[in-house]
């Protein structure tokens, strides 16, 4: 069945309707709000599948439908929908994962007083996210980009009565907005240089050859960068903010203050991956400068190094965290770094493949963590958990599958294949091998911290009252886990035995099978990571919550620094934060004392001359000026009466004046 691009709006519109229903029903309309949200998501899933079917019929076609949003004479601001395999795969993933997480939330949020609001916000998020995916215009993408940021803000701060949640929501919004500032500037510049913000527009779009050639042809005087490089890097700023890349990664771990389904959906599977999607979407623009050899910097080189730093940094910090959700959050930071790395080294298809597999297994891990937290009465500290494997068998089994997919346990798990693609691409990159080494180091660390997480949470003995009384959750929570676990395995088929997905995404790319030696190396590294993790945490499980961490006793300084997230938050608070409040206080001071003082002085001067005038008037000048001064004093009296409150007379006078004026004007008008 053929699905035209002009109908793509249906996909985001479905959850938008659900959000509207959620907003309008009364607080008691829980079933209606959640039902509408889930039904719309499932419907959107089927529509997305239909779109995927159409897109795969002709993968190289970029079917677009454009329309004007507003017209400004010199040029119209146009928006549009775009259907290609990238959009379609992403839509299918987002709608599928969202459906499952919505269903999971039925159980997880059951006791929350703001249940219907939660589903309203979730639907709003889904609508914006899907709008972002189907956009054929950088402007529309930016609009939806801001709206997903809003939904993220609302959902992180959903439990706003916790001060930490309110602070985290604000931090997330403002940190990502700093990145968005770059994005916005890139957008302005792109529009100014090309006169369009449409991606594909019959040869005139910004991602099409003619425009790109024009953009690479222009060079900046100041630094020798081509315009396309500069714009590309500015747009990348937006991706850095949204996808939690170094140095703007600080908001993402704090975002875990939101309810766990939110962490799973927004801060693991979908929204944070939007930055990766953005760069993949504008990939022709990002890579346009690759054809030039004599430029000082290629945009993608920056992307690769930022990705590599983030991948390593996130993995290191994850080793020293104790909160189950924070470990997963830093793991997300690290995995997003992998995706950026893949984009930077030239394989956007590998990045998207990892994005898709990661969405499933990370959603699985977060929901698994949610299942644990729900069962353990909101205990999130892995030191206080333990021994849950026997009590929560389904959660345990599915979590183990997610953990193996994330660690990259070979062959059976999708994460292995997608990570392999990235390492392979990094190996092929001819600029530098540093990203490859960072990626390989992160492989060991990932396997290590995930093994630690498993061992502490599910093995050994229960170490607290809360985890002691845990038991498996109801089917509404476990069925999504099972389905996601199945996906974490089945998605291997997209890459094996043949790299089908990557071929569908980009038919022109010829991907040869990866080198066997690299694969062996990464399998060995995974084994090292899991082995050492088990040796340290699994063989001899922690006895009580207070017993020391073996790593911490071995290298207390390093672990303490990592546990404190390497002090990025403190650094920013001491620099950006202090600068900001310094500026604000300075401006406030100027306002009060300089400008305000000037006004007061002027007013005092006015009063002073007033007094002098009156004195002069009354005591010195008489006679000829009598009539004038009388008038002045008359007005003054009316004025002072207004001040003292008795304004009747004066206002009647004003009103009379108005009437006279009005009559005059009306008579004049009719003449």
């Amino acid at each position: 069945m053929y699905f035209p691009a002009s109908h793509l709006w249906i996909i985001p519109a479905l959850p938008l309707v659900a959000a509207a229903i959620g907003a309008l029903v009364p607080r008691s309309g829980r079933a209606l709000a959640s039902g509408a949200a889930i039904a719309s998501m499932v419907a959107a899933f089927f529509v997305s599948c239909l779109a995927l079917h159409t897109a795969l019929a002709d993968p190289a076609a970029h079917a677009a439908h454009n329309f004007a949003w507003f017209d400004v004479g010199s040029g119209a601001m146009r928006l549009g929908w775009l259907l290609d395999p990238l959009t379609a795969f992403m839509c299918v993933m987002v709608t599928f994962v969202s459906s499952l997480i919505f269903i999971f939330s039925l159980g997880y949020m059951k006791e929350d007083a703001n249940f219907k609001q939660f589903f309203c916000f979730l639907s709003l998020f889904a609508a914006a996210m899907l709008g972002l995916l189907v956009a054929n215009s950088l402007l529309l993408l930016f609009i939806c980009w801001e709206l997903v940021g809003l939904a993220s803000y609302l959902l992180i701060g959903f439990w706003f009565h916790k001060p930490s949640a309110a602070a985290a929501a604000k931090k997330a919004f403002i940190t990502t907005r700093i990145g968005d500032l770059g994005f916005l500037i890139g957008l302005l510049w792109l529009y100014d240089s090309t006169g369009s913000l449409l991606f594909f527009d019959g040869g005139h779009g910004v991602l099409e050859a003619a425009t790109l050639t024009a953009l690479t042809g222009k060079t900046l005087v100041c630094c020798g960068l081509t315009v396309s490089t500069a714009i590309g890097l500015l747009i990348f700023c937006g991706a850095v903010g949204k996808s939690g890349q170094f140095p703007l990664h600080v908001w993402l771990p704090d975002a875990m203050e939101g309810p766990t389904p939110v962490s799973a959906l927004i801060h693991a599977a979908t929204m944070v991956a939007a930055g990766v999607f953005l760069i993949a979407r504008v990939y022709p623009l990002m890579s346009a400068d690759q054809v030039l050899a004599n430029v000082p910097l290629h945009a993608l080189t920056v992307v690769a190094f930022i990705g590599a730093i983030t991948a390593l940094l996130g993995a290191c910090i994850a080793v020293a965290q104790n909160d189950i959700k924070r470990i997963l959050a830093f793991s997300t930071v690290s995995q997003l770094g992998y995706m950026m790395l893949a984009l930077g080294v030239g394989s956007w298809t590998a990045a998207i493949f990892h994005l898709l597999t990661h969405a499933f297994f990370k959603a699985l891990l977060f929901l698994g963590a949610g299942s644990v937290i729900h069962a353990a009465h909101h205990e999130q500290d892995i030191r206080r958990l333990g021994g849950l494997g026997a009590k929560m068998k389904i959660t345990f089994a599915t979590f183990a599958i997610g953990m193996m997919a994330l660690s990259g346990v070979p062959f059976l798990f999708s994460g292995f294949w997608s990570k392999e693609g990235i390492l392979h691409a990094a190996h092929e990159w001819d600029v530098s091998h540093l990203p490859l080494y960072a990626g390989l180091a992160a492989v060991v660390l990932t396997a290590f911290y995930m093994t630690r997480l498993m061992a502490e949470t599910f093995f050994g003995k229960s170490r607290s009252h809360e985890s002691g009384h845990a038991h498996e959750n109801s089917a509404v929570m476990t069925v999504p886990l099972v389905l996601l676990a199945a996906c974490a395995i089945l998605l291997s088929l997209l890459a094996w035995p043949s790299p089908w997905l990557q071929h569908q995404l980009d038919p022109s790319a010829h991907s040869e099978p990866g080198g066997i030696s690299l694969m062996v190396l990464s399998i060995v590294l995974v084994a090292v990571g899991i082995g050492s993790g088990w040796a340290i945490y699994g063989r001899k499980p922690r006895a009580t919550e207070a017993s020391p961490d073996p790593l911490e006793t071995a290298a207390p300084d390093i672990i303490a620094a990592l546990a404190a997230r390497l002090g990025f938050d403190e650094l920013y608070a001491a620099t950006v934060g202090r600068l900001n409040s310094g500026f604000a206080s300075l401006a406030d001071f100027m306002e009060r004392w300089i400008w305000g003082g000037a006004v007061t002085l002027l007013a005092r001067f006015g009063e002073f001359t007033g007094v002098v005038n009156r004195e002069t008037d009354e005591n010195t000048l008489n006679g000829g000026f009598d009539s004038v001064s009388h008038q002045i004093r008359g007005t003054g009296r009316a004025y002072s009466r207004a001040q003292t409150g008795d304004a009747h007379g004066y206002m009647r006078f004003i009103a009379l004046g108005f009437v006279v004026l009005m009559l005059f004007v009306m008579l004049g008008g009719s003449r």
Partner: protein
Amino acid sequence: MNLLPWTIYVSFAGAFLALLAGTRSASAARWVALATAVAGTLLTLLAAQSFTPGPAMQTLVDVPWIGELGVRYHLAVDGISLTLLVLTGLAATAGILFSWNIEERTGEFFSLYLALIGGVYGVFMSVDAFVLFVFYEIAIVPKYFLIAIWGSTNREYGAMKLVLYSFAGSALVLAGLLWAYAAGGAHGFGLDELTIAATHISHPSQIAIFALVFLGFAVLAGMFPFHTWAPTGHVAAPTAASMLLAGVVMKLGAYGCLRVALPMFPGAFAACQPIIAWLAIAGIIYAGFIALVQEDFKFVIGYSSVSHMGFVLLGIAAATPLALAGAVLQMFSHGVIAGLLFAVVGRMVYERTHTRQLAALTAMPLHRLLPFAAVVFVLAGLASLGLPGFSGFPAELSILIGTWQAKPLWALVAAVGIVVAGAFTLRAIQVAFFGSTGARASSVDAHAHPLPPITLAEKSGALLLLAATLFVGLKPDVLLNWIVPALQSPAFQAVIKGGTP
């Protein structure tokens, strides 16, 4: 179309009737005022319906007034005026709905209020500089009384400051206009006539006159560093007056810059462009930072108003078609959004809690006590920080793109203001409505001492303004289809051509 001048007459008639009705009963005065404002709004909407956009000013009335000076009572509209007339109608109606609880000298309050509105309508339609000036003064005077009599915090100081600035501004404008009239040897005060006369003036004098007129108007638009009247004025003013102050009176200044100062002296404007742009940018960022550390809720909104008006001035300074169109759109957008914000702070919150100190508000679980106010403020706040879907986004986007076309650096620095706007708006939302300290503790006595519920009048006013900002945010072309053709007029083309460096 020809019904538009009646907005002025109806408002003045309403002012008179409200005064009479007020002597009988307060409620009669309210209904008279509401009927007048609604009638004005309907007249503007009716005119908008039959409006054909075009570059020319469409004359409504043109009769001689003061023969010796060549002053004519000449009213005309184009798309820019029409946009602002519609805004005036909406803001006036909403303002009355939010002043429904005025008990003290109700008749006089609404009388002054409507007189102000009449003056504003008049300014937006005048194409004779003298008539424009008269209406401008009519709009300024009632403002003083509204603040000095019905105001709150520090009202004498606020009213004094406001009057000092307003009259200083209009004195500059008057001086400039008279100078141009005399030096250019004009035979009338028609804007077209003055524009032609201005070409006979030497370039240095042109710059001096332009500076006088522009500055005079820009003071009222809240241009940095002549903005300080605005926040104190807002804080001192009663709710409806601060809604009008931010909603339409500040627009009078910006409109004067756009309609009078720029077309009259395109050459002088081109010379002053960078100065104006940098002052506008300074206002955006400076006021944003101040808003970030205010402890009085109304001051936050007052400074945010200055910051957003900075975008209007930046759009005017950049003077590309897109930037000018964006500036007019921003005038509309800010008029609606600022009105909404002041309504929540001044009417819904302050008159129930009797405090505007954020530290005090944060201790009350306001989101639970006043859920409607919380939702409205969150939506208005999001609109104010430029979230897509609300009118601020297309407006600020157009201004930034248009400014970039003139000078990228301006747009670059101004865009920082958007991050600051996000910061101060979210701070205000969280601290005022979702304050955490003691939220649980006081939830018990929240039920013991419930605040008076939000009235129907407040709800209707809020919904009216919310609908306006959403509608324009989703379909900005409704207004842009009026505004853009107006920029094709020879007067604005001269500004655009002479304006772009």
